[in-house]
């Protein structure tokens, strides 16, 4: 892997940019690997990267049915934050946030992590109570979060409407300054480049069609559209399709998959300096470095794998955006899209060993997995390498739905569902 640097740019400029190499190779699949990761999104590629760099396991294949980073990695609204209520969630999301800081240097790839602040709005007494509870809980866990008055909120985000006449007036806000955004594609590409350079095989257009198990129940490998590939350890990181893959191994999951939509506006000059979220009116917004407003909508109400969604869901979100930011009422929206998110009953992910020996699963990130990408890959690589969870992901088992030890972010989450 040739290092990217200002000198590399100068060198290539001198010779007509003929020396740039492919960022990752596309080898033919081998018959057998030590570890197979199903799904080349951010989480899967990060897992492969940390298997190689932290645990020295490089005989790894990442299988992807489509193209690398073409699922939810390339479809999310790129928001990063760690202001979750419970200790377990705070542990895993802040682990990720700490890795975001410095990730560009580690990967030698600009993931454009920008700690521009995530501000969550309160519109009524209940919101104030919930958000203040989050502020206190976060601070006890060493996570920055602070309470703002409406005037302070407007100072931090000038286009915000804090008029008392608004239908849902802003009565306060919680601000996590370390929160922000990153470039989603670059995260997948950077991890892919780093993993590939260390010998990981990234195999695109290779759909897993079955999971083979030995007589003793343990995993032997996977059937794919490019033939059988053997491995004693298989990690399923397939987002909306996780339950489909797990069914192939005979494991029924506490998951349901829903379409989640997002949309972007025409590009305009810098106007939104941070991320603004509102649970109550259900919208969140930030501005990309290209100038587009990036707006996240909610999920549809029914299970679907269609990677689209209802227009009324987008309209509902835009109603809320125009309410919070009246200056955007004349903006034109350029495009919208959907991704399929896998949601657990307690809205917390599953990163764990499974009842099948050699089969591991990293799923259930629901509507908010992007922010966790580095931390998720880091602890999932540990889980696979050691056949034992990292202390950070130890609470995120499948068995919690039997024992009742839920991590119940569902009702009190800082996240819009």
């Amino acid at each position: 892997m040739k290092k990217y640097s200002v000198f590399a740019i100068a060198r290539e400029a001198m010779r007509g940019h003929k020396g740039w190499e492919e960022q990752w190779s596309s080898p033919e699949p081998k018959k057998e690997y030590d570890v197979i990761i199903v799904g080349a999104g951010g989480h899967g590629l990060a897992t492969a990267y940390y298997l190689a760099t932290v645990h020295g396991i490089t005989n790894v294949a990442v299988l992807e049915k489509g193209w690398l980073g073409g699922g939810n990695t390339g479809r999310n609204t790129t928001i990063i934050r760690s202001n979750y209520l419970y200790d377990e969630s705070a542990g895993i999301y802040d682990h990720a946030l700490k890795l975001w800081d410095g990730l560009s240097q580690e990967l030698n790839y600009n993931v454009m992590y920008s700690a521009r602040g995530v501000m969550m709005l309160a519109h009524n007494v209940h919101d104030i109570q919930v958000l203040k509870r989050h502020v206190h809980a976060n601070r006890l866990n060493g996570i920055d979060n602070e309470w703002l008055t409406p005037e302070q909120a407007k100072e931090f985000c000038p286009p915000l409407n804090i008029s008392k006449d608004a239908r849902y007036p802003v009565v306060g806000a919680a601000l996590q300054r370390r929160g922000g955004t990153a470039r989603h594609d670059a995260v997948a590409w950077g991890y892919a480049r780093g993993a590939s350079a260390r010998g990981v095989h990234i195999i695109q257009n290779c759909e897993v069609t079955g999971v083979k198990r030995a007589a003793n129940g343990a995993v032997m490998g996977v059937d794919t559209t490019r033939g059988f590939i053997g491995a004693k350890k298989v990690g399923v990181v397939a987002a909306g399709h996780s339950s489909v893959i797990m069914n192939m191994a005979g494991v029924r999951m506490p998951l349901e998959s829903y379409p989640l939509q997002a949309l972007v506006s025409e590009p305009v000059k810098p106007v939104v300096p941070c991320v603004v979220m509102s649970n109550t009116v259900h919208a969140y917004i930030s501005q990309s470095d290209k100038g587009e407003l990036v707006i996240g909508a909610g999920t549809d109400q029914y299970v679907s794998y269609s990677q689209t969604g209802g227009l009324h869901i987008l309209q509902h979100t835009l109603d809320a955006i125009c309410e919070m930011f009246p200056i955007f009422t004349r903006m034109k929206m350029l495009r919208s899209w959907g991704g399929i998110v896998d949601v657990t009953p307690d809205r917390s992910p599953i990163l764990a060993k499974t009842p099948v020996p050699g089969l591991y699963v990293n799923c259930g990130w629901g509507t908010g997995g992007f922010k966790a990408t580095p931390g998720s890959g880091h602890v999932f690589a540990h889980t696979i390498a050691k056949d034992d969870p990292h202390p950070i992901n130890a609470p995120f088992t499948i068995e919690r739905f039997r024992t009742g030890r839920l991590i119940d972010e569902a009702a009190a989450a800082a996240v819009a569902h």
Partner: protein
Amino acid sequence: MLLIRCPYCEEERPELEFRNAGEAHIARSANISGESDDDFEKFFFIRSNPKGIIYERWRHMHGCARFFNAVRDTVTDKFIMTYKAGEPKPSKLPGVAK
């Protein structure tokens, strides 16, 4: 937006009138406190989440307000049929091979 046929109103109406109520044909035990942890988990948390044909419940919230069941393809979101609550799971689906 989906168009959904309510089997009670016998009309196709826009999705906004309806609320999805999750997977159908999951029977609640008559003796729920006697359920084992395994069985309760299956009843309460485990879902089939199929890529393909799903049997699901809907409620005609802003219409007759009654619950009914539907068969839908989760890849195309196309409804295959709807039927009244309490009717058995259809063994044959119109227009579906297998």
